[in-house]
């Protein structure tokens, strides 16, 4: 449910309610806390990664109302009432989300740090019904950088998951 943060809030910590992976989280945070820091430091969900912290690398990608965004470039208080999905919310119990399974199957990572962001971005790519040729996948995954250079296998994983009609 949307929470009225009032016409003005802060600069001291204020109540901010976020709906993350279907669960309500009542946080008390300053308005300056980014969505990324709220997830990692206050909601105890460290699966979302902090890479560059300036909107370049995509490691912090989450879904807000189904759309992929960089959680480092937005404030948590701007997203009261929204549906937030992080990597922790994709699997169904022990059953991996098909995109997670495809990344495992195709070895779509090396160190794994960018992987949560890659997977959420890839889930959104399929939801956006982008073409699934290699060039299009590369273009529409361009917001996610992999410094290990696992791109070839990431593209394979996204294409394979796409063909399964995820």
């Amino acid at each position, binding site marked *: 449910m949307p929470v009225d943060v009032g016409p003005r809030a802060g600069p001291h910590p204020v109540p901010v309610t976020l709906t993350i992976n279907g669960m309500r989280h009542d946080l008390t945070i300053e308005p300056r806390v*980014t969505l990324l820091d709220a997830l990692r430091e206050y909601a105890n969900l460290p699966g979302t990664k902090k890479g560059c912290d300036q909107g370049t690398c995509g490691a912090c990608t989450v879904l807000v109302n189904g759309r992929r*965004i960089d959680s480092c470039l*937005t404030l948590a208080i701007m997203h009261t009432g929204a549906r937030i999905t992080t990597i922790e919310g994709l699997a169904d119990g022990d059953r991996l989300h098909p995109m997670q399974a495809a990344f495992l199957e195709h070895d779509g990572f090396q160190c794994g740090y960018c992987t949560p962001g890659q997977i959420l971005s890839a889930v959104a790519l399929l939801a956006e019904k982008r073409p699934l040729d290699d060039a299009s996948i590369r273009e529409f995954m361009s917001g996610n950088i992999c410094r290990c250079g696992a791109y070839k296998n990431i593209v394979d994983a996204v294409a394979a998951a796409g063909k399964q009609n995820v």
Partner: protein
Amino acid sequence: MIPTKFEYAKPSSLDEAFALLAEHGPDAKLLAGGHSLIPMMKLRLAEPEMLIDLAGIPGLTGITVRDGRVSIGAMTKHATLAASEELRQHAPVLFEAANALGDPQVRNRGTIGGALANGDPGCDYAAVMLALDATFTVAGKGGTREEAASSFMVGMFETTLSPEEVLVGVSFAAAPASAYVKYAHPASGYPLVGAAVVLSMNGDAISEARVGVTGVGDHAFRAGSVEKALAGVRPSDRTALEGACAGSAAGVDVRSEPAAGAGYRSAMCDVYVSRAVLAATRG
């Protein structure tokens, strides 16, 4: 990488926003998509004490086409523009710029009004607005004023928007023969050169051209001498086209950086302007 402390407000009307702006003066900042402002706040290049989120104000989003004129709300996201069939048809120059800007995550949050009000010298839309000869609608406490895109942009991160005003929308005449082509920095995606062209054709010859360029100078500019030289040119005549596009950055203090020195950038400006002209003629 943590901003200084600030108070956050989310007004539900422009009047409430004006009241907050009046109360806090230069200590207030308007927040649209936040994709330029929030990074600047993290670097403490901006330290507002009051952050005014415009997302709660109705009527600032959407694309309207009426009587051959396109109007776009300032809070419309890049992704909305990049997916708009109407825009693809009526203003391919803006449709292409929206698709070439940032990456999918950035396009899902950033807004056209935020990008233009920020006055970044590498703003893709700035060239597009100049080529479209767009009109900006600016609201203030005393009412609404309209300003030509060409006079709105003053310098690097500098516009005529006063601290107590809000850019609420842009509008322009439909321009079906138009295109945006950019030479993107390979890492940042910002334009080393961004060329926007709007054409009127007389058969297979250009009768009138408007050319906007971004990324090259300290703010976007119209390439006036190229516009004049393009009149009467048949774009299929490559020699005539390239001749008309030569010197597109003449008289401009061209930016220089490791990825593109001033001489190279000027040369690429001519190349990308001519490519944009060709792209605009494909119809």
